[in-house]
């Protein structure tokens, strides 16, 4: 009885194992296409760069082999892991503050490299059937997101949009529920440009004083609610809004004209913005000028940086980081990201400066 029982058990077990092994043996078609060998690089950080990083990694890996990992863990954790040495490079939406800078410096042994990699306008998008574009000044946007304007046909909106058919529907605002660089840049813009209509301090977390909105996880979560909900308005990376294509987009009042989000507008603002104070020469950290007024400017935007050390003990790591970052800030890399992630390519002056900083990466100390 004993042996026959075991045999009866063994048969299905062997069958299951065989199925499992066959499945494993099939292999993954996608990984077969990657080049073999090379160094494995681990990095991570800001989720805003996720789409762009995917493109850069895919292109870089296809050409040069090796494996580059980018974990979407958020800016804070990315910087933390960079400073502890767990990541060889990291992405962050906010440039390093002095504490983070000294931690990174002691890990790297010298001033860390901080270059802009991903520049993108943030679109204020809405879901109103038949309306593809609306004009708003920053005060109107602040009032909507603070819950002071609650109907689409509110005079404050109507007065800026003569001719637009504004329905009597309720406005429901959508914001990020997680910590996010997009939220930081959006609230930073509102607090600096809205002449006091927005009272909360800029923060990566949506302020609790702004009443009555729906929170959603990640850019994609915001997009999900926006596309599902008539009468909704929210802010999201412009690339996501363009990729979706069904939502209306707000043109911001800049100076005396209303400008839609454009890559050039964001790039121009970045080029004209002053460098952040107290930064080492290897850092390109910038304080974005939220009140820029030049024609076409779009100051509601996000700059995401890449962090790296000037020296790595391992020459393979040093070469791969150098090669990868050089590709990212090159016009090839920037164009590729612009195509798949809809980012604003760095202009040649910024790109050249970044390339020259990255060229300082070397092995040994």
């Amino acid at each position, binding site marked *: 009885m004993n042996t026959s029982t075991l045999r009866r058990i063994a048969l299905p077990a062997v069958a299951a194992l065989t199925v499992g092994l066959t499945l494993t043996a099939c292999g993954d078609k996608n990984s077969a296409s990657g080049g073999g060998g090379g160094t494995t690089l681990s990095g991570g950080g800001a*989720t805003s760069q996720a789409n762009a990083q995917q493109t850069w990694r895919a292109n870089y890996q296809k050409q040069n082999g090796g494996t580059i990992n980018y974990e979407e*863990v958020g800016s*804070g954790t990315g910087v933390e892991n960079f400073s502890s040495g767990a990541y060889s490079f990291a992405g962050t939406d906010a440039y390093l503050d002095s504490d983070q800078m000294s931690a990174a410096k002691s890990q790297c042994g010298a001033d860390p490299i901080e270059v802009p990699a991903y520049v993108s306008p943030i679109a204020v998008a809405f879901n109103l059937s038949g309306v593809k574009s609306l004009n708003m000044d920053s005060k109107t946007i602040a009032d909507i997101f603070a819950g002071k304007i609650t109907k689409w046909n509110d005079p404050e909106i109507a007065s800026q949009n003569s001719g637009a058919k504004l329905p009597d529907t*309720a406005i429901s605002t959508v914001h990020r*529920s997680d910590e996010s660089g997009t939220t930081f840049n959006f609230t930073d813009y509102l607090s600096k440009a809205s002449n006091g209509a927005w009272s909360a301090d800029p923060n990566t977390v949506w302020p609790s004083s702004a*009443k*009555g909105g*729906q929170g*959603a996880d990640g850019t994609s979560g915001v997009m999900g*609610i926006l596309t599902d909900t008539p009468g909704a308005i929210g802010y999201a990376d412009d690339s996501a809004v363009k990729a979706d294509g069904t939502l209306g987009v707000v043109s911001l009042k800049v100076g005396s004209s209303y400008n839609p989000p454009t890559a050039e507008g964001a790039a121009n603002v970045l080029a004209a913005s002053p460098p952040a104070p107290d930064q080492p020469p290897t850092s390109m950290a910038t304080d974005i000028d939220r009140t820029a007024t030049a024609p076409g400017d779009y100051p509601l935007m996000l700059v995401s940086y890449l962090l790296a050390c000037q020296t790595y003990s391992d020459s393979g790591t040093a070469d791969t980081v150098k090669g990868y970052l050089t590709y990212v800030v090159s016009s090839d890399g920037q164009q590729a990201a612009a195509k798949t992630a809809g980012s604003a390519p760095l202009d040649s002056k910024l790109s050249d400066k970044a390339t020259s900083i990255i060229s300082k990466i070397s092995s040994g100390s």
Partner: protein
Amino acid sequence: MTATASPERTESTGKPRPSQRGDRAFAAIVRVAAFMILAALVAVFVFLAIEGWSGFTDVPETYAPFTSFLTYIEPLVVSTILASAIAVIVAVPFSIGIALFISHYAPRRLSAVLAYLVDLLAAVPSVVFGLWGGRYLAAYLQPMQVWLHDHFGFLPFFGPGPPTPNGRSLFTAGIVLAIMILPIITAITREVFVQTPRLHEEAALALGATRWEMVRYAVLPYARSGMVSAIMLGLGRALGETMAVAMVLATTPETTLNVIGVASPPTIAANIALNYKEATPQRQSLLIATGLVLFVATFLVNYVARWVAGRNARKMAR
């Protein structure tokens, strides 16, 4: 029980023989395994406490947009209680109805199939319920919630403020939770219903009771504490269920009792799932600290539920 008592005796009277060494070793292995259960539960508490401790009293920035642990967790606790309450209120009548249906109303041949169907409901993974809740149920329940707001908006649970524009409310999340805890409550109540002594039921029927009177006077009183225990277990499950809420709810940091409003704070469990990804080490500790609170709460609920069930079993055994 007798089977296990007799071997114990033989062991104690026999003289030490080589085979007893094997016995001792095996007994030791088995004991170690059993006490690992105890160790695991203690470990859950200890490790959550170690990693989460700093989350209870960190610098104010950690709790953004709030400033302390209590203000941070308060909206989450309110939502957790509201969502679980909706789940239990909706699920309990249905569960008892189904349990009765399977145990006393359905044709005998059908009831086995039906019991299997309910088990099937329990086998559907929570992420699939979340997917369905977010993509279908929310939009489907939205008009109903607008109706509730229009007619019962004076109640604190259905107003003030506009009703949900897309159905992604705590109410919808609660309904999904209700569907998920329904099989558990049903399974346990069904079991107690079936255990009602046949004699009581037949005596009631013989006295001329209708089927409902038989259920009411013979089955329900017998099963009362079993039902309480089942409801508590369902509550425990609803408190800790994560994905359904995380995938359905539109969130806000603001505490609100309005379950059909535009947005509600997430439940404790959903809040962890929604924020773990971008968490800095400080936030991670904070999330683990809220997890510890959830663990203690569900532990207590389950403890009471099992205690009630155990007391009932002891009473019946007498």
